[in-house]
């Protein structure tokens, strides 16, 4: 679907929503599924729970990735929390041709404010995580369902690769995580 040599992905979340881990996992899963190179770039500051967080992934089918700078013109944008869409610098990254993956259980009205050819996919990652009790201190963990949805939307890696990487990272907690991934893979749909 995307013919660019290096695919760039931006993650927008809030502290505690596991967006940084999501960028690491996505890059690793793309690499495991045959991409030649991948990098995960977290933007680290004085993190605290609830504050806006950014992270980026670059993945490449054949070229070596040599840039360490943050992604300013992403092909895909993750929105872990719909309130982030109200932040101008987040909204400004939504450019023509971008694919958005939004954590939401209901349709969002953009009132024709979006550029051309923006595709939006929605998945209720929060609901899926709560259903499977995937949470830390009551806060739902969103990275795995968001990445399950991304597997379906992008086709860059399959659930089998997800399982392999998640097992390596999370050991005995892998199965619970995979349940949310599978649900999100099934439930993600285009917002029309």
């Amino acid at each position, binding site marked *: 679907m995307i013919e660019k040599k290096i695919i760039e992905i931006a993650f927008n979340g809030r502290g505690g929503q596991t967006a940084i881990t999501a960028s*690491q996992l996505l*890059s*690793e899963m793309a*690499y*495991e599924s045959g991409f030649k*190179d*991948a*990098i*995960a*770039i*977290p933007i*680290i500051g004085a993190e605290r729970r609830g504050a806006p967080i950014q992270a980026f992934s670059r993945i490449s089918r054949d070229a070596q*990735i*040599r*840039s*360490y*700078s*943050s992604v*300013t013109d992403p092909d895909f944008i993750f929105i872990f929390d719909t309130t982030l869409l109200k932040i101008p610098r987040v909204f400004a990254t939504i450019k023509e041709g971008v694919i958005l993956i939004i954590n939401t259980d209901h349709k969002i009205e953009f009132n024709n404010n979006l550029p051309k050819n923006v595709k939006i996919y929605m998945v209720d990652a929060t609901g899926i995580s709560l259903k499977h009790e995937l949470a830390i201190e009551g806060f739902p963990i969103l990275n795995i369902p968001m990445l399950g949805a991304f597997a379906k939307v992008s086709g860059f890696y399959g659930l089998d690769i997800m399982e392999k990487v998640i097992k390596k990272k999370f050991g005995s907690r892998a199965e619970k995580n995979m349940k949310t991934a599978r649900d999100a893979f099934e439930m993600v749909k285009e917002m029309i």
Partner: protein
Amino acid sequence: MSQKEQEIKFITGNVAAAYAARSAKVQVISAYPITPQTTVVEKLSDFVDSGDMPAQYIKVESEHSVMAALVGASIAGTRTFSATAGQGLLYMSEMVHWAAGARLPIVMTIASRGIAPPWNIWADFTDVISQRDAGWLISFASSHQEIYDSVLMAYKICENEEVLLPMFVAYGGFVLSHTSKPVIIEPDDKLEKFLPPLPDEKGWPHIFIDPERPMMHGNLIMPSGFYYEFRMKIHDEMIKSRHIIKQTALEFEKIFGRSYGNGLIQEYKMDDAEVALINIGGLALQAEQAVDELRQEGYKVGSVKLRHFRPFPTEEIINIAKKVDVIGVVDRDTAFGSPTGGAVSSECKSALHGTGIDTTILPIITGIGGREVSVEQQKEEFKKLIKLKETGEFPQDMIHGTLWDGILEVK
């Protein structure tokens, strides 16, 4: 635990540094946490705790004690490692000098960060540059793999009987320390071929302390004694370590198949280049991307990665200057009050003095305190070099003869 097969792990630069210490069969680690280095010593703590790495792990109360412990462990004949950054390195400074003066082959990674105040934890090499005259070899890694590989090479260089000096392997905080990439972890059989364990007392070229055989070391020496001559020897052997570094890079390439130029510098598309940009750390790798993009637009540009700042590759810089009319030298560090404001560009200028080469050096400072540097910005730096070559015009917004690229307007 042994590493039987080669493995590719998707890890941060810090974890790559920890794996390197494990692969080097380090025997003593001393640790104190500091951002952005902390995950290096955390990972090592995991390795030691799980029995994956048969090393002594000493937890101390400060960076000063970190180096004091490593001085003791190294002088007892063990392979030692630690990691630090920024203020931690400054606090350690007294013992940093001691380690070099005592001629100990300690290796330490630095996840470089800006110096306070105001507090800053992001990429800036001023921390490691501040230890310039301590007697440590100073190297910069530009990629996650290069962190791992540089640590392995560092032990081989430092433990060489003709060197016996410590080495810093520095890389940008967060830029490399917290980003993740695939890194090759080498198997034990190859590692042992490249870097065998330290010899026992008989084969160890250094004095060897042992409670069974008490001795004094580092005691007071009168001005008429050999203090002066010890100092000269450190400089002499640091300069001579250039050929050991080159030899080690060659041997590394032969065994592991990864090339790091001649060890001191690594050139990229310099053969027909008309201008060159010299960088340290991650920006050197990113500059290669800028070179490729500019070459597609028809510009003949080349990039040079400075792998070693100490010993300084004087001869290599002269050779670069023979190839091109204009060189941009990029410092991600400050050297206040120096001729150019940056440590590397000042040294490059000094290297050309008296050679009769009239290549122009454009000193550039960039990325201070982790200020982001994009490929686009680096392409603009190249274009300024081309303009300088073609018109003789220096950029207009220079400050005291140096281009502070990416700086905000200040009153």
